[in-house]
């Protein structure tokens, strides 16, 4: 089993043109930030060639001036590679990875629902996890969102069956 440092070193040498930043945080934890332009290429290489073939989850972050999506991948020997990719503030978007990992669908819908990050190539489907009548343009995990911004009109239409 390779140590986190060895893995980071190897990835840095092999994929230097894709990688913006890489670090080995501790045993079994490697963080890498890739250039959004080469996201698909680098992601596919890490998954298909470097053995990070298990998708644990996808985290979306609001960094105020931009968005960040982190793909937490792991290998069979327990090393977690977290691949970071940034998306711009206006019309943020990332490509889908559901062609490689069908199970990423729910995580990608979460990015769309909670942060308003558009996932290009994601097939049409039921939204997750917000209710179907959640107002448009309200993304609760964005830092500038708070409960008072919930559209009152929509809220009234769906007040939990109180006026049934």
């Amino acid at each position: 089993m390779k140590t986190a440092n060895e893995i980071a070193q190897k990835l840095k040498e092999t994929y230097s043109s894709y990688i913006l930043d890489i670090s080995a945080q501790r045993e079994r934890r490697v963080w890498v930030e890739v250039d959004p332009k080469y996201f698909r290429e680098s992601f596919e290489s890490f998954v298909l060639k470097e053995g990070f073939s298990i998708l644990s989850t996808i985290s979306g972050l609001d960094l105020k001036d931009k968005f960040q999506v982190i793909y937490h991948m792991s290998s069979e020997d327990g090393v977690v590679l977290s691949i970071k990719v940034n998306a711009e503030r206006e019309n943020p978007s990332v490509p889908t990875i559901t062609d490689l990992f069908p199970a990423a669908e729910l995580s990608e819908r979460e990015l769309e629902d909670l942060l308003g990050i558009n996932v290009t190539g994601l097939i049409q489907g039921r939204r997750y996890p917000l209710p179907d009548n959640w107002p448009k343009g309200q993304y609760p995990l964005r830092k500038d969102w708070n409960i008072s911004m919930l559209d009152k009109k929509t809220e009234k239409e769906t007040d939990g069956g109180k006026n049934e």
Partner: protein
Amino acid sequence: MSKKVVIPIGPQHPALKEPASFDVTLKGERVADILVKVGYNHRGIEKACEERTFLQSVYLVERVCGICSHSHSTCFIQAIEELANLKIPPRAAYIRSLIGELERIHSHLLWLGVAAHEIGFDTLLMYSWRDREIVMDLLALLTGNRVNYAVNVIGGVRKDVSEEEKDQILKAVDILEERTKYYVQVATEEVTLIERLSKVGYISHEDALKYGAVGPTGRASGIKRDIRKDDPYAAYGEVDFEVITDDHCDVYGRAVVRVKELMQSYSIIRQLLKKLPQGPLSVVAPRLIPAGEAVSRYEAPRGEDIHFVKSNGTDKPERVKLRAPTLANVQSVAKMLEDGYLADVPIVIAAIDPCFSCTDRMIVAVNNVSTAKEDRMDWKTLREFSIDWYKKNRGVDFTKLKKLDK
């Protein structure tokens, strides 16, 4: 050619223990297509964590789930400890693992009962839930609570295990092991059970890998992954146990894996108690957590639980992301149900041991916050409201109850 019929199962359905919606398209008796919708239990926990301190968030995260509460709190605390560069004392690590295994035992016994109930084997439900009381009592003895044990604090654990408690655990484990041997016998020899569960909810090894099945669901399709082995945390690096896998790939396989995992848990508990090191229970944790990011993984009873925590150097987390094992297994369920019988739908769904509360995390009454005051009712008003509501909307008259109340 038979006509296609769509049957909505859920969001509220007697066969489901929690809200989730499965729109089943039937061709005759068989499932032709299935559309899964989850999210009914979304409660916005991640957002709520950002508005609370790390310590408050620990209690909140513990309440993501009622069954695997220790899994979530340990997973979350491990991430905080990594950020704060805290090394917990060995005794604390052992106690965390101990509670974790007791939790796995209670969860697997709970599952065994639920699964038995779904196939009409209620005797087994009564047996396994009776035995589950033993481990619930143990958890109450060790932590003071049957659920939400809150044994973790940032930097260690809050409660020690005394010598007398050790004896009681060992005695209880002996009884449970004896009972579990019987369940292993039932699972491997009882013809009705084998016939009922075999080839039901089949998912091949390749498909299980493709759809990212985790925990016992994945292990029953031959995926040899267990975070306790692959990415050891707490005291798991120091105990010896076997990762149980099975190649039946069906509900029967999932039952066998869980029952055999119980036997492993008893062995782990004995080893933990035997080696339990002396020493302090916790180290002092800072109030402000240094800026950084951490990923923490935990093998919950249902599979891999992963938490991502980002800190900005204050006492509140910048971002908390939780992924419970059921979310990883939900997509496998759709695959398992394909081409199966409608009557098998409840047991196949139950076989992944779903926990939609974990999956969806939480929304703290978002709809009501702006009008919180006027929406608050005392007990009397609430009862009157419900009596009126039923009279008006359902034509049921509960007025007699109203009088009884006075």
